[in-house]
């Protein structure tokens, strides 16, 4: 798994993991999210467009990231989950926890359109 980081706007960070986020690679994502939360009020968007497989360890890493950023008054959104990730988020009820956006732009705009 490769993780790209973009900072398109102040206080907004886009995290783009690529490949599988599973029991082997999830700790890397978790650690990366923890590192990125270095100031208050951040919005982190995890873009899942290039993740073709995510398991419960991957979901745990996302939840962990959410908790870390929330502690400092920020939030974590998810954009462009692929069918497999969508199923995983739905079955674990995590689609009720995260704001999930069909496009990255919408996530950046924090638009009202939410995809469940």
């Amino acid at each position, binding site marked *: 798994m490769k993780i790209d980081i973009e900072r398109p706007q102040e206080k907004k960070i886009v995290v783009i993991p690529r490949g599988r986020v599973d*029991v082997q690679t999830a700790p890397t994502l978790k650690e990366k999210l923890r590192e990125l939360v270095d100031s208050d009020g951040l919005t982190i968007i995890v873009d899942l467009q290039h993740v073709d497989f995510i*398991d419960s*360890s991957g*979901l745990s890493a996302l939840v962990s990231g959410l908790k870390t950023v929330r502690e400092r008054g920020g939030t974590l959104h998810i954009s462009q989950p692929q069918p*497999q990730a969508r*199923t995983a988020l739905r079955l674990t009820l995590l689609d009720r926890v995260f704001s999930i956006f069909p496009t990255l732009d919408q996530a950046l705009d924090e638009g009202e359109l939410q995809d469940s």
Partner: protein
Amino acid sequence: MDGKLSDILAEIRKTWSGLTGGGIACFMDGRQILGFDRRTKLPVEVQDAVDQGCEVDGYTYRGRQWWVVQSSAQETEQLRFVAWSKADEVESYRSLLETWMETLSFGLREEHLGKSLTEALVGAWDRLSFFYEFTHIVSRAVDLLDLMEAIIALLKKVIFVEDVFIVLCEEGEIRTLTASGQDLPDADLLLALIEDSAGPVSKRELKDSLVRADSKLVDCGDFLAARLTFDGQTNGMMGFIDALPGRFTANDIQLLASAADRVCSIIESMRSRMVWEERQRIERELEVAARIQASLLPDELPEIHGVDIAVYLQPARHVGGDIYASSRNQDGDPIMILADVAGKGIPAAILTSIVHGTFRGHAPFCEKPAELMKKIGRYIYQDLARADTFVTAIVLRCLQRERSFEYASAGHVDALLWRNENAEVEFLPATGIPLGIDSRYPYENRTVSLHPGDLVLVYSDGVTEAEDPQGKVLGLQGLSDIIYATHPARAVDQIRTLISGLEIHRQGLPARDDVALLMFRCIHEDDANRTVLPFVIDSDFTAVRSVVDLIRGLEDEQFDGGPLLDRQLLDDFALATSEILSNQIHHAFEEGTGRIEGRVVVEDNRLVTDLYDHGVPIPEPLHVSMFDGTEPPERGYGLMLAEGLLDTCEYRRIGGTRNHWRLIKNIHGVDKNEN
């Protein structure tokens, strides 16, 4: 300048030019006494080196290597050689150049002892030609002893002595070579006396010791002996013997010391070359042997109606002591043998060929396995007795009509019989002693009936005795565990899984023994409606991926008349399976590692994964996260996912020792509750 000297120097130039294709110049007291065409001048760098008095150095000039070799033996009669040739050649002849130098300058020193310069140089020339010929002999030699004899003959030619000898010690044995062909008296004593000497030793220096030892060497006029040191110790000596007392001069000592040095380095380089060549030869022969042995394994397994059959042989080294062969008996029934010759490598491989040939020769004239085993035992008894070894073997005859088989086992490890109906393993014990112990042993037959789905696995002890790094063997239990998971698969897939199970068990250690596996399985009516993909993995999170890949890879598989496996379905099933596998690894093997055996089964209307391990039991009831969608926990989504994705997710403990997970995903359009 003396005419004789210029002749000698001209010879040196000719010799050097013949050897290296290069040129040479010689300077005495700064005067050029040999060499270059008068118009040629030495390159500045070389001239500088000569002026600075360097002893040996190399320079590249116009693509050629120049060597400056200068005598440092004498202050008044300075002698220098400047020689050149193509760079890659000059290095190998450098020592020759140095020897010429030494000998020439030594000849000049001798002049101070009252001889004329010319005489000294003429004497030296004989030695120079010796080293020239020496170089040629060495480049042609292929055998060490031949080479030593040639060197002795050559020495005899240049030094007028009664005899020349070389003594070599090998593995405690002393071998003496002499020019005359006569033995060297008390060679071992002489060798012991000069063992610690720095240079050649003459009779005068050893006289007292020889008298004390009452040696016959006291009777000879004079001798000179130098030790030969190679492989880090004194391993021989060489020298001269003559009837004239006090025969040997400082010049002879110099010659012997140079020759001994040269002989030592030749022996060392030759031995390392010979060892390497010998290794290469053995390697080539082993490859040929491995090909021959591999060709003995018939490409086509016997075709037996209603039976699925596979075989695997892997020697621990190039060639092995395990063998499989098949034939037909007098009634046309398929008959097979799997044998294991005690020992490994070439000796065992030779005996496997004998077993193989004997089996092939006698099988068509026998009816029952025990009868054939008796014949084989009687026939090969003498060979085994001579080799002081034995063979364990199992001969099997398939009775197609009765759905059964007969076997006779000569001390072979218990074969394994999987009973499909009650999912149990039975063992098939030996029916006699190993071959090679009693030529008339009355082996017995045993008949075993088979039912659909039953499986017979015959193997060599290299399978069950495979050790992990802690020395724990796979054992019958490990073998049975794997079969428990793999049994409905095709024989060839089961064998492949067994091999990977063995590799996982060994944890990267190389196989210490040969491995042989022969499996035959009664086809079951359900076989046509399912595809079984068995696997064995290490209880390591990284191995989970291989199972995920196995399931997701089904999208590319074509199943005749099978279900349509779309990506979404396979992703869901792979995710559920990986969650249970991760859970299994997490809970069952909290301390240490273990092995997980399993299978993925594709049926017409569902996907099934069975997972087995020998870890600690999972506490019941299963805890599915109680997360209600408000405050998310950081862990515990795995079982939630598996339950949500699967139609059935069952756990049970079998026999108090084994965990079994069964995961089922119905394929679209099929009733969710149908298992």
